[in-house]
């Protein structure tokens, strides 16, 4: 067990896979100087500029070249810097990376990882704060990972790099510095296996990425009111661990799905619709979704706060559900 930050976990996961497989390489803007958030610090010294490669400001080429490099036998890890900038390379990801294996009848595969730092991070405004994970769950061929802890970043990034299919990998900008214990001897994590963050009997809260920590805090507050909350971290949205969620809701009878992204069209709708269908009759109350209002993210802190799914908002929703 080693204590490291979420950023360090990502860095050592990449480093360990690069040691394991010489075909793994990373490419993105400013990686040579450690990346915008320091998540690549020291790697160029260790692996050299060919395998920790800088890139021009050419998101479409970063993504598109990675597709070709993956088809041709390497395993690129592309750094998009901000999830928002990946919107400059959507054709390459959706029309090319996600579909190539299928369109070619399985003649080749596209093993690549697309790292997309996501989410609200101190007044970054509407073009540097988005959480668009739900988009990628809708696209056949893509795996979608949303780690919330250093241990999961360690376990899931390694799994993503070993995946023979493209993985859209969302790291949350607001928890780069979060520390936690990591078992560096552990195997990569399987996709589609949720983590029960906390056990409870009255209510289930499903969350992912940074929102898991908000849900955890809310559940502590609720515990003081005698409300016993089970918190489930999905870890990956495609595939997602339906069985774990069903099992928990069968026990609690109540579900809140909370995410930072916009509620309308968010993945919370998928979870809520699936649970409402499968556990119809078992549910003691309607499934409650908590997500951002359908507004762009503002720059001014008080306006930025308006979109946040906070501890209080989760707790309020929980009490309402149990009232």
């Amino acid at each position, binding site marked *: 067990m080693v204590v490291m930050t979420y950023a360090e976990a990502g860095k050592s996961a990449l480093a360990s896979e690069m040691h394991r497989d010489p075909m793994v390489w990373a490419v993105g803007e400013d990686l040579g100087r450690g990346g915008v958030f320091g998540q690549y610090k020291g790697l160029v010294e260790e692996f050299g500029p060919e395998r920790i490669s800088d890139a021009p400001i050419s998101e479409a080429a970063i993504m598109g*070249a990675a597709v070709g490099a993956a088809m041709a036998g390497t395993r690129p890890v592309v750094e998009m810097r901000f999830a928002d900038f990946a919107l400059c390379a959507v054709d390459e990801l959706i*029309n090319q990376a996600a579909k190539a294996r299928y369109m070619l009848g399985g003649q080749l595969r596209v093993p690549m990882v697309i790292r997309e730092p996501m989410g609200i991070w101190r007044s970054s405004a509407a073009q540097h704060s988005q959480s668009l994970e739900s988009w990628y769950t809708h696209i056949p061929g893509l795996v979608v990972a949303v780690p919330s802890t250093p241990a999961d970043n360690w376990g899931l990034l390694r799994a993503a790099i070993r995946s023979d299919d493209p993985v859209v990998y969302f790291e949350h900008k607001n928890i780069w510095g979060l520390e936690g214990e990591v078992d560096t001897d552990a195997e990569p994590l399987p996709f589609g296996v949720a983590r029960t963050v906390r056990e409870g009997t009255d209510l289930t809260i499903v969350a992912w990425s940074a929102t898991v920590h908000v849900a955890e805090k809310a559940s502590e507050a609720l515990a003081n009111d005698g409300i016993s909350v089970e918190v489930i971290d999905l870890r990956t949205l495609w595939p997602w661990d339906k069985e774990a969620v069903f099992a928990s809701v069968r026990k609690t009878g109540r579900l809140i799905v909370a995410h930072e992204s916009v509620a309308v069209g968010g993945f919370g709708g998928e979870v809520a619709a699936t649970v409402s269908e499968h556990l119809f009759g078992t549910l003691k109350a309607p499934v409650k979704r908590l997500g951002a209002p359908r507004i762009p993210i503002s720059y001014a802190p008080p306006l930025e706060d308006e979109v946040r799914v906070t501890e209080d908002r989760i707790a309020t929703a929980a009490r309402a559900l149990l009232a």
Partner: protein
Amino acid sequence: MSETTAPPRNVDVARLVEHHRQMHRIRAFEEAAIQASHDKLVLGAIHPSIGQEAIATGVCLNLRRDDYLLSTHRGHGHTLAKGADAGAMMCELLGRAGGTSQGKGGSMHIADVGVSMLGANGVVAANINIAAGAAHAIKLRREDRIAVSIFGDGAINRGPFLEGLNWTKVFDLPALFVCEDNGFASTTRTDAMTGGPGPAARAESLGIPATTVDGNDVAAVDEAARALVGEVRSGGGPRFLVCRTYRLTGHTASDPAAYRPDGEVEEAWGNDPIARCAAYLAELGVSTDDLESHRTAAQEEMAGVYEAARNAPWPDTALAYADVQDIADPREEAFRW
């Protein structure tokens, strides 16, 4: 920017004969595909390369089986010239079992990874970045193959043209870009939508040496391609080849191409690359019978290929759920009652 137009002096007759055969195979394949389209056995759009065969053979005869090729929507000829099996290709166009991609991709995604042809593409210019990446992999793996991207003159107005070419220059990659300049982007004349002198000037502004040839002169294409492929393979970095040509059919098999004035197409037929090659070979003493036999052989081959494809079975519907991704079974999600 060098210009090559006159037929090369040191001619290898056997090589030119090979081009002549191959061009006829491509033309016959396209004619059969157009027939299949009219017979409603090909439902999706197909984009024939009739009139542009010299580029396909002129470039691909200079490539090794393990050199990567990425093509466009108009990719039948390139794929055949790279060595793909015509029968499997025709099955793919008809969406039948035995197709190169099991019928899942069709004409616009035609590919044969066995001959390192990594795919045509339905998105104009998308193959440029993919080829740049294949070239990047070659460099990382210290291999001596090269990656080739063939695209049209309409593709040079898309961002990936700039990003992909710049990428190969900056990383000094073994990539050859071939622009088929046929003057049109579907129904629109490209000169009306293209600022500046065109593809070669754009490539050179990105630091990539460009050569322009008469794309209907197979010997000229062959000679230029041979030189450029050699430079790229020997570590010279990316190169760019512009081939001036003309599309003798409509944009698709169903396009009457009414946007072209009377006479333009007829006149262009006078510049048919196959006829020009034949005339040149005749000059060099190859008999008309031999030349004619290339055509008939090709037409027989492709007639057989079409016949076989139309009689091939449909792919097993279970294939619809295969090769999506390794994890999760898509059957679980849909149409459960």
